[in-house]
């Protein structure tokens, strides 16, 4: 039974479920909501690598999300570039801006870093909002094309869009899994535990922090670019601070610093808020206290909480086995000494 719930099987089951999901529901609205959730998840994964695995809480994430979205939109609508060329350029632009901003902001640490990036995020929002001639200001941009064809494959229906986004999500998860389980990932975790210690064991902390910051902005940009071509119109509000905190909420609920946290948190919150639509903004009255309790009692979110209890159980079992072995040994020892007498 336990073998049935092995990680590999669970992952396989989830992927199969995600693939057949559009056929089960037949409800385009559900497919739409799910696609949007997948797009958020990609952004949350980026935030997770930086905040969860390296210990640097960036609050400029929505800013980079917006940069990705606007870069794609402007390159396709104003510059009339081929969709996929624009897509790749959008990712490059976001990453380069991430590199520049990272170089400056990573000179700060802990809450100073959070406050600094909060300001950076707000400035990005302001630039988008006020730069009327480029971004269309408060009116935003309309007529953004959907994903272009790849050979014979078209992305015109909601279901095909769903699969495209799912593909990018799976790619993101795979990349994250590999990073976290590599020496590079261990390096990031070492920086999170103690930057001083990491440096004394020969890790160039600045270089690694910058790397993680750029990866994080890359995924924010990917998420933003997919969002723009999925929703087809964007306004400056997608770069607003509240989006950053939405992403952060998904991450905290699911489990910061865990690999499956972003998926669990995003699906849960998006679906629960769909169900609570009728309460309008009053649903925050439910979310607020639940989130507070969660942070107090499960600082590593739902996934982190479960993982910890499993780990504790395993340790207890191990300890019990060890005790048993010790007891047997002592029994044997007394028996032996009795014989010697």
């Amino acid at each position: 039974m336990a073998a049935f719930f092995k990680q590999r099987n669970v992952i396989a089951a989830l992927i199969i479920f995600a693939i057949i999901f559009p056929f089960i529901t037949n409800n385009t609205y559900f497919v739409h909501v799910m696609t949007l959730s997948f797009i958020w998840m990609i952004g949350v994964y980026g935030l997770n690598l930086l905040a969860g695995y390296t210990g640097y809480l960036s609050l400029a994430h929505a800013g980079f999300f917006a940069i990705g979205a606007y870069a794609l939109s402007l390159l396709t609508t104003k510059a009339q570039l081929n969709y996929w060329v624009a897509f790749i350029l959008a990712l490059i632009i976001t990453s380069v801006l991430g590199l520049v901003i990272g170089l400056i902001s990573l000179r700060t640490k802990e809450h100073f870093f959070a406050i600094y990036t909060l300001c950076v995020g707000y400035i990005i929002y302001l630039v988008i909002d006020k730069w009327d001639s480029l971004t269309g200001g408060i009116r935003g941009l309309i007529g953004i094309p959907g994903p272009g064809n790849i050979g014979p494959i078209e992305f015109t229906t909601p279901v095909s869009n769903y699969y495209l986004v799912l593909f990018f999500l799976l790619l993101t998860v795979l990349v994250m899994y590999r990073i976290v389980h590599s020496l590079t990932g261990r390096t990031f975790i070492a920086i999170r535990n103690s930057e001083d210690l990491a440096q004394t064991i020969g890790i160039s902390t600045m270089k690694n922090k910058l790397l993680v910051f750029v990866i994080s902005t890359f995924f924010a940009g990917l998420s933003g670019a997919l969002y723009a071509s999925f929703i087809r119109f964007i306004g400056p509000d997608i770069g607003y601070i509240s989006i950053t905190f939405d992403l952060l909420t998904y991450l905290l609920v699911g489990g910061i610093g865990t690999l499956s946290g972003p998926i669990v948190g995003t699906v849960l919150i998006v679906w629960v808020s769909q169900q609570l639509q009728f309460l309008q903004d009053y649903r925050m009255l439910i979310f607020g206290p639940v989130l507070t309790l969660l942070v107090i009692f499960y600082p590593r979110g739902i996934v982190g909480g479960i993982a910890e209890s499993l780990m504790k159980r395993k340790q207890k079992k191990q300890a019990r086995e060890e005790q048993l072995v010790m007891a047997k040994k002592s029994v044997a020892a007394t028996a032996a000494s009795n014989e010697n007498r």
Partner: protein
Amino acid sequence: MFLETKNLTKKFGGLVAVNDVDFSIEKGKINAIIGPNGAGKSTFFNLISGFHPPSSGQVIFKGKDITRLPSNKIAELGVARTFQTTNLFDQATVLDNVIVGHRLRTKSNLVDAIFRTKRLKAEEKQCREKAIEVLEFVGLTSAAYKLAGSMSQEEKKRVAFALALATDPEIVFLDEPAAGVNPDETEGLAALMEKMVSAGITVCLIEHKMQMIMKLADKIMVLNYGEKIAEGTPKEIRNNEMVIKAYLGGSAIA
């Protein structure tokens, strides 16, 4: 000379934490730095390991000036250090925590990580083997798969040693390695330091436990108010009047 400091000085604003200290460390010996609280011992360590840039003076390691190098570069040259407290990832095993210690000797990067290249696999194996090796060296083989959070204070000290050793150092600086452990465990740690020396690693430590230092050290330097007031063998230090006055408080035998 293996490692030496020349006129090393560190000022924090108006406070002179380390003042004009000349000190040389001999290869293959246990060198100790003692002194009352606030004497500048930890600052002295921080200057050598590149944590703080000195206000003036030099640090020379194997004939090379390492004064202005960042601490990760100094670690690459073979100078390791431990802290008084070691922050580990409590939710991971001891082994997992130590594996990263050998990271500085590996080259694999993000691309290797994403494509899981042969180089990454080989280097991961190399790091794991190194971690197992150093855990065995410090006597924690049986605790390798325990969670770091469930370790005793003494085990944590040993993990700190293991992490430092995983960097393949030639010299290890230990900041109060026996603070907060009981006398039996202190002896165990002292034996471990001797084992390190016999494995060819030079040791330099800060310690408050006099009995241990007097037995263990080949050479002692005494700091007081940031200045070196004495240097010599334990016997010389024990009989040095300046030291007795400043540190041992009038009684010759601690």
